[in-house]
């Protein structure tokens, strides 16, 4: 039961951190909960399919199918997040006006909601498929009873959701004036981390050189195995031993998003 709870917790943790940031970024947006819930459900169905076809995905692309599959999902999610952050920045003035008017933040209109719902769905798809495979395996082989497995899954799920909820509630403690700035920076870091992870998969597939490997080793300072290391690895893309290629993707993604949103911001303040 404990082993099940731990594995499920780890996989759910990654989705919950993404969901926590996305929910905070979209605080006050109409239809937010419905969209995110819809994204999660579609992601869950997708996770089942991915788990079902794990063998075929694995055999694809000369045995590097998993790496390319993960790269595609991560790159797609990072692109969507980047687009959303820039969109939010461009519409910053409208949002500020709306905030004054209604006392509510943050996203005006539903447009970026679809994007963020897809981002949450993709996180559920990627991590969920691993959880599904694990639970399937344990149900198939272990002498554990159905009750034990169910209890393990529920405990792991509750633990992961709790971390995501704490993150979300913690972010909401930030004054509405700063929430927008903080959540867009967090989204940019989330996207940069995903881009770096995608680069890691391309290196693993032999498609990109690692350049310098590892660029540093900070496992003595913070291990990626621990809870803090795991949360930070999703939240800001922390890696204890990144390759230089991953660092390049990280810096590049972060730089492009921040520069583009700064440009967008200046543009929106120009007199019409």
């Amino acid at each position, binding site marked *: 039961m404990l082993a099940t709870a731990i594995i499920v917790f780890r996989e759910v943790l990654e989705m919950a951190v993404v969901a926590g940031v996305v929910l905070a970024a979209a605080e006050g947006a109409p239809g937010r909960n419905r969209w995110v819930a819809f994204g999660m459900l579609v992601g869950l169905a997708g996770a089942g399919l991915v788990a079902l076809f794990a063998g075929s995905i694995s055999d694809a692309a*000369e045995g590097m199918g998993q790496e390319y599959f993960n790269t595609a999902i991560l790159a797609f999610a990072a*692109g969507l997040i980047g687009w959303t952050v820039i969109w939010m920045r461009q519409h910053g003035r409208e949002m500020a006006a709306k905030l004054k008017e209604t006392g509510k933040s943050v996203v005006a209109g539903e447009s970026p909601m679809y994007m963020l719902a897809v981002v949450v769905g993709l996180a559920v798809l990627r991590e969920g498929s691993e959880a599904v495979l694990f639970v399937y395996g344990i149900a198939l*082989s272990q002498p554990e009873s159905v009750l034990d497995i169910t209890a393990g899954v529920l405990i792991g799920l509750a633990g992961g959701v709790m971390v995501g909820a704490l993150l979300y509630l913690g972010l909401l403690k930030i004054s509405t004036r700063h929430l927008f700035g903080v959540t867009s920076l967090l989204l940019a870091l989330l996207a940069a981390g995903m881009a770096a992870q995608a680069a890691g998969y391309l290196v*693993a597939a032999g498609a990109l050189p690692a350049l310098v490997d590892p660029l540093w080793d900070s496992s003595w300072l913070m291990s990626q195995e621990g809870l803090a290391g795991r949360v930070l690895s999703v939240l800001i893309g922390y890696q204890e031993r990144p390759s230089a290629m991953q660092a390049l993707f990280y810096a590049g993604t972060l730089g492009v998003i921040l520069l583009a949103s700064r440009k967008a911001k200046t543009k929106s303040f120009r007199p019409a």
Partner: protein
Amino acid sequence: MSLSPTASALMAVVALLAVPSASAWAEDVAVYRISIKDHHFVPETVTIPANAKVTLIVSNEDATPEEFDSIPLRREKVVPAGKEVTILLGPLKPGSYAFTGEYHEDTAKGTVLVKE
């Protein structure tokens, strides 16, 4: 606004260009094999040369899926039941790199030993 299509397109191009070069790996690269039996790696230690690319083939002889997982090696790969997967490693510096079968961490433990 136009960033994300551009960025995603760029990444897609990178990924596409990359596919053929992956096969270049297969030439002159030493192959090492390990199996997963009863949720244990057999053998548990793989010794490989430093500063060289190698291919590690992991075959899962169990009836349940496993996930080869190593933070030090930066590799994470599902090994479906009854299947084998190819993991590209290196060039690595000398040292000891631990890996686990994430789905059965208590028993599935192994080490890649990198020696000069």
